[in-house]
């Protein structure tokens, strides 16, 4: 339950200022409009829209998800956290907060994106929703762990995408593949292999993160 309390504390302190949520929303709008401007009147293919969709999500995640741990270091409250809870509890609380953030962010991006891009038509909605769901979990888990690592380093802002990209690369490759499959209207049986790999990624990263977080958190 301490994890839930930690999550509630993060939500409350976020809603008080709405600093991160506002800037994240603006970042999403900016990223999508840059892509729209660069496309212009060009007709782009369906597989390209699937790739660009995950480009927007990746960079939005990179701009928003590092804050959970970085803000604790900036405010100097990480020592207090050390005192009140075990490392795994802290990780759970932070992960819960990032999960909610990623889900809100990606649903917003998906709605905006399918409204603004004519070529982005989801033909198998169940597959798309399932891959987005599992992908969000993977994205949140890996980003939370990397955020914990960079919160202890200098040059936090630039380091986060650099460290996160190699870890997220297999996830993004699978998700691009799955999104273009669901845009083509493929059946679940065609995408079974990709879905299995996606769920494996989530499970392995979650296990690895819980095992390694103790070392990151305890100096």
């Amino acid at each position: 339950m301490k994890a839930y309390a930690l999550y509630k504390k993060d939500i409350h302190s976020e809603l008080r200022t709405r600093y991160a949520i506002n800037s994240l929303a603006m970042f999403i709008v900016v990223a999508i409009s840059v892509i729209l401007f660069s496309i212009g009147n060009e007709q782009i293919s369906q597989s390209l829209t699937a790739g660009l969709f995950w480009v927007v999500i990746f960079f939005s995640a990179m701009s928003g998800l590092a804050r959970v741990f970085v803000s604790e270091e900036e405010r100097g409250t990480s020592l207090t956290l050390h005192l009140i809870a075990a490392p795994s509890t802290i990780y759970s609380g932070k992960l819960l907060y990032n999960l909610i953030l990623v889900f809100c962010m990606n649903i917003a991006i998906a709605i905006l994106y399918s409204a603004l891009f004519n070529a982005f038509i989801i033909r198998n909605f169940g597959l798309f929703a399932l891959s987005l769901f599992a992908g969000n979990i993977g994205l949140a888990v890996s980003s939370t762990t990397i955020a914990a690592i960079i919160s202890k380093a200098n040059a936090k802002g630039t380091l986060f995408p650099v460290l996160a990209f190699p870890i997220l690369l297999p996830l993004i490759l699978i998700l691009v593949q799955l999104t273009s499959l669901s845009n083509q209207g493929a059946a679940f049986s065609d995408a079974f292999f990709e879905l299995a790999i996606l769920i494996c990624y989530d499970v392995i990263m979650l296990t690895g993160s819980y095992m390694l977080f103790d070392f990151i958190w305890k100096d």
Partner: protein
Amino acid sequence: MERLVVLHLNLGKYEMIWKIFLFILLAFVLVAGIAFPIVPHPHSWYEFPFIQGLGENAKIIFFHVPTAWLASVAFLMSTIYSIKYLRKKNLDDDAKSYAANQLGIIFCILATVTGAVWARFAWGSFWSWDPRQTSIFALLLIYGAWFALRSSIEQEDKRATLSAVYSIIAFLTVPFFIFIMPRIMLGLHPGAEEVENGKVVQSSSPVINFQMNGNMLFIFFLSLIGFTILYFWMWKLGYKTIILKEKINKNHIRE
């Protein structure tokens, strides 16, 4: 101070024999790999078979594959020493992992560059996102990120812990590359597998599906062994130098 240095650089009794053996081995591999002729029907022990579509280009296998192999070995070793470090908290293990990664990034760049130059002549373009090219690129990114992380932390034990953790997390992604890559893009490398109607099959192209004959395979394995010994020797020198530097720095501070 000097006694300390002498003590640590005395690598072992049979060091000279190893050095001479390695010199002869690598010299032979170098000469054999470059100079042995390629003929349509090899008879003598020093002749290589002609491969349709590759010709003389096939000889890169003696130098390119060992570099890619060592890049992966270095990655594996740095992961093993990272786990060791997290268990025992001994900074020597961190030095070993650091030395392995230093060599790993060198071999990774070598493999990428030699592969790209070869691809220009064999496939027509420097880069074509073949599964193995993508994997080596991901490995290069991991090495780059690892050094970026390391250079941004000043405190010694913190740096060692965090870079060890990152090494292990990066290693966890390796199986996904192995499984997902052949599904997404076509293999162009010799020995690559293709996906046809959802099944992984051996490719039918002669370049991809080529077989080395006996003496080619022999030189190839000699080259692998030679480069691996060279790697371990360089790695040992590397980590001993790092540990010594640390010791000398600490002695300076004490004095």
